[in-house]
């Protein structure tokens, strides 16, 4: 039983009144001041035993009447009914707790647990409650205990994805469309949270989102690797990006190499004002091979202050060059001369150029040999087509350079296109051709997309070959795809002839360069673009190479091993190893840089995405009002107070009769 106006129960204090009256009757009626008690002696109080017993019975009746009246004014109602009645309309409540890496900041996780607990305890009676955790993925938890056993992960915050998934499931499980449901989001609501999934999502009508933001005063600066840029890649140094959040006040940080045991080497002072980012060159790496990370010091949140960067491995990469017999002796005019020098300055692993004749040792070891240069033309012996195809299928990159006099036979075999033709192009009237169309979206040319690097007009092609592929019916003209198998023209000369063509095959690709890079054919080898291009080609295969690949926490990467796949462990940032294909692959997992953007996100960002937000204060008020209305309605329906008042009236009648009879009896005897 519940009470609508429990304050009226204070009226129960009136129960004491009859007792007090009785006590007053039993004690002397008052105090009398007297000049002196010297002539008085005490007399024992008088009690009428029989009368006392009668009065106690009467007292009980009076007390009962008063209690009934007080209870009636408190307006009781039966709550069990309330629960049953509230059943169909009971709301659904999903508590969504952020477990992303940014929740590792000091104090946040405890605050989040408290907020989640409060949200669960504050659930309206009869509501169906579910508990979820999310970072990159949404997980459903059994109870609060499971949440308490959890800890923040290292993964990024896919807030949009989690909300979409949760809202969809809430909407799907509701019997009627637009049934009310509330998602209580407990999160630090950082600026780096990914809301992209919400952009194309139609937020369900009945689902409302209540953001319970947990905050910390801890300041955060972060350390992340810089994606390679053409201007920086060959420096042999490590460049890092230091970001300081806008809410910080400090701006001086220290950057130093460290090993698992602790810092190693000198610290570099980094000045980075709040809200800004600095790209700095890390101090020189100590010779100690155990040194495998850079550590930023000077902020309050260490979770994103470590950048794992291991010294390039000792095992060199191999670039296999299949072509005419050793032409290094031909000096700077020969293609092999440039090929030999182009990888010398490459940062990272050393590259070893291997030359092979017609029957090279070509195991499908893509990781060890990321690039095969196949020189067509001249006195090139027949290439090992079978081995090359297997190599490409496994993910390798074959760069076929069509030099003067190249025959289309090998390309036909590699392209599986017997109608492919390759012939010498007619010389232009100006004497040279220039690059006219470049596909800057391709990874090979993407580094040149910046206008600072996109000037290819200095590279003149004196002569080139014409690669002709049978046009698929109805296909658009140049520079569209050349063939049905996804052949892509990456660069085209100003006479419309494709210069660089990519043909994917299996997990790898075949690139065809329709001109040589040696000075006899073009200025390509002597241009500044040559080395980045070739290194880019190397990297096309090396994307599969775990050692150099930039893997983010939580990324799902499967490694082919035998008949099945080995899933990489990417749960925590750091250096990891996995054994597959008979050898140990080392890889490094990085924290998602977005997770370091810990500045608070404005909640209107969600409102702009049409998410129905709940104001917590107004919500609490509304909940309380709804509850009060419910109780009022129940009480109105049950009207228990009427029965109580009726009982009190009956009690009063009894009391009157009884007391009257007592009085008459007293008069009769008195």
């Amino acid at each position, binding site marked *: 039983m519940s009470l609508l106006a429990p304050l009226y129960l204070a009226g129960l204090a009136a129960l004491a009144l009859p007792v007090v009256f009785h006590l007053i009757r039993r004690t002397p009626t008052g105090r009398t001041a007297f*000049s*002196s008690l010297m002539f008085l002696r*005490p007399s*024992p109080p*008088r009690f009428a035993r029989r009368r006392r017993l009668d009065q106690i019975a009467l007292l009980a009746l009076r007390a009962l009447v008063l209690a009934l009246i007080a209870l009636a004014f408190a307006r009781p109602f039966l709550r069990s009914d309330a629960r049953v009645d509230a059943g169909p309309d009971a709301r659904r409540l999903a508590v969504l707790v952020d477990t992303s890496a940014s929740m590792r900041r000091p104090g946040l996780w405890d605050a989040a647990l408290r907020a989640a607990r409060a949200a669960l305890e504050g659930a309206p009676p009869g509501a169906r409650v579910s508990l979820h955790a999310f970072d990159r993925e949404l997980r459903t938890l059994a109870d609060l205990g499971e949440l308490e056993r959890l800890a923040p992960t290292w993964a990024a915050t896919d807030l949009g994805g989690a909300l979409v998934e949760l809202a969809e499931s809430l909407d799907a499980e509701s019997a009627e469309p637009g049934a009310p449901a509330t998602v209580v989001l407990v999160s630090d609501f950082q600026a780096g949270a990914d809301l992209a999934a919400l952009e194309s999502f139609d937020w369900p009508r009945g689902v409302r989102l209540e953001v319970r933001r947990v905050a910390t005063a801890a300041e955060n600066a972060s350390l992340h690797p810089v994606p390679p840029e053409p201007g920086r890649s060959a420096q042999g140094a490590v460049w890092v990006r230091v970001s300081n959040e806008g809410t910080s006040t400090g701006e001086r940080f220290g950057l130093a190499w460290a090993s698992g045991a602790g810092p190693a080497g000198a610290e570099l002072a980094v000045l980075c004002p709040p809200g800004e980012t600095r790209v700095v060159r890390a101090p020189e790496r100590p010779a100690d091979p155990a040194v495998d990370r850079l550590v930023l010091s000077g902020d309050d949140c260490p979770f994103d202050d470590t950048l794992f960067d291991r010294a390039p491995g000792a095992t060199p990469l191999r670039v296999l060059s299949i072509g005419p017999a050793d032409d290094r002796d031909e000096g700077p005019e020969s293609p092999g001369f440039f090929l030999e020098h182009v990888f010398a300055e490459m940062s990272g692993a050393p590259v070893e150029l291997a030359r092979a004749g017609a029957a090279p040792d070509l195991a499908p070891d893509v990781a060890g040999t990321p690039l095969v240069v196949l020189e067509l033309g001249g006195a090139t012996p027949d290439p090992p087509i079978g081995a090359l195809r297997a190599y490409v299928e496994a993910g390798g990159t074959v760069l076929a350079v069509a030099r003067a006099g190249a025959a289309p036979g090998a390309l036909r075999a590699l392209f599986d296109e017997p109608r492919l033709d390759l012939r010498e192009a007619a010389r232009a009237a100006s004497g040279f051709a220039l690059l006219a169309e470049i596909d800057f979206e391709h990874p090979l040319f993407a580094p040149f997309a910046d206008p600072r690097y996109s000037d290819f007009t200095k590279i003149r092609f004196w002569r080139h070959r014409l690669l002709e592929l049978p046009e698929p019916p109805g296909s658009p003209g140049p520079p569209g795809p050349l063939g049905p198998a996804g052949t892509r023209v990456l660069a085209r000369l100003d006479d419309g002839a494709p210069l660089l063509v990519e043909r994917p095959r299996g997990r790898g690709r075949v690139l065809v360069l329709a001109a040589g890079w040696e000075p006899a054919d073009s200025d390509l080898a002597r241009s500044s673009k040559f080395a980045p291009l070739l290194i880019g080609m190397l990297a096309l295969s090396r994307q599969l190479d775990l050692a150099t690949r930039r893997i983010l926490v939580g990324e799902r990467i499967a490694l082919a091993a035998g008949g099945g796949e080995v899933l990489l462990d990417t749960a925590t940032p750091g250096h990891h190893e996995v054994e597959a294909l008979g050898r140990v692959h080392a890889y490094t997992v990085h924290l998602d840089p977005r997770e370091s953007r810990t500045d608070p996100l404005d909640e209107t960002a969600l409102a702009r995405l049409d998410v129905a937000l709940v104001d917590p204060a107004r919500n609490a008020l509304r909940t309380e009002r709804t509850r009060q209305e419910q109780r009022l309605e129940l009480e109105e329906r049950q009207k228990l107070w009427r029965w109580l008042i009726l009982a009190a009236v009956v009690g009063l009648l009894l009391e009157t009769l009884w007391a009257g009879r007592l009085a008459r009896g007293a008069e009769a005897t008195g």
Partner: protein
Amino acid sequence: MRGSHLARPRTRWPDWVDSDAVLAIEPLELRARVIVEGFLSGLHRSPYHGFSVEFSEYRPYSPGDDLRYLDWKLLARTDRRYIKRFEDETNVRCHLLVDLSRSMAFGAERRPKVEYAITLAATLARFLSMQRDAVGLLTFAEDVLDFVPARHRPGHLLRLFVALERATSGSATGLVASLERIASLVRRRGVVVLVSDVLAPLAGLDVALGALRARGQDVVVFRVLDPAEIDFPFDRAATFEDLESGRSLYVDPVHVGRSYREAFRAHERGLAALAAEHGADLVPWRTDRPLVECLFEYLQARLRRGRSVLRRTARGRR
């Protein structure tokens, strides 16, 4: 002797003007004057004019009278010889002992006893002062509160009245102590008027009264009592609270009334016996009696007990 026929005077007050009306007069001095003048005006109309020492009058000189008391001015004006008799008779030193203990604050249906007591004392003081007697005052509660030596000089009465208007206090009635004190303070003979309810054990009073009498003091005791203290008219059980000690006692008058009255009478008898033994004059004074009668009681007491004193002082009568 003229004074032996002393009778109650007819006052100017009608009967319905009771003591309360007089007591309602706020200034004590005025109150005392009203009573005294009322008393005197009634006195002057009485056929028993002229009595004893307190009233001034001229007496024709007869040979043998001390020439020091001859009124030379009158002789010069009228060529008749008169003796200013009263001047010789006013060297009575009267000390008023007024009980201001808390028990005096009791008044069941009337005003508190203390108001009667101080009005009584003030009336006596004024009356005596008008007779040129020296009046002193000692107020006491548990201990002696104020002592004003007996004087007859301008402003002295006012001092007495100020001392009388003190609030009641104390947790007991230090009757014996105050009597001993006055005995030690007053060396010359005189009159000691004790105004008190004497609601205190009689032990020790015997010695104190004896000491006073031994010093030649005439003792008059005005025992001011509320009628309720005498008759104990209560009929409802109540917790009775001692005004002095604060002690409280549950009392059912039905059971206790008789024993109270018996105890009170016994105490009264004991006090009366004690007074008789030491030649003190005990005047039981109920607060429902008109105040003006106090003067008659006093004078009666003086006449009853103080004839020797009168003789001693009224030299001119010899």
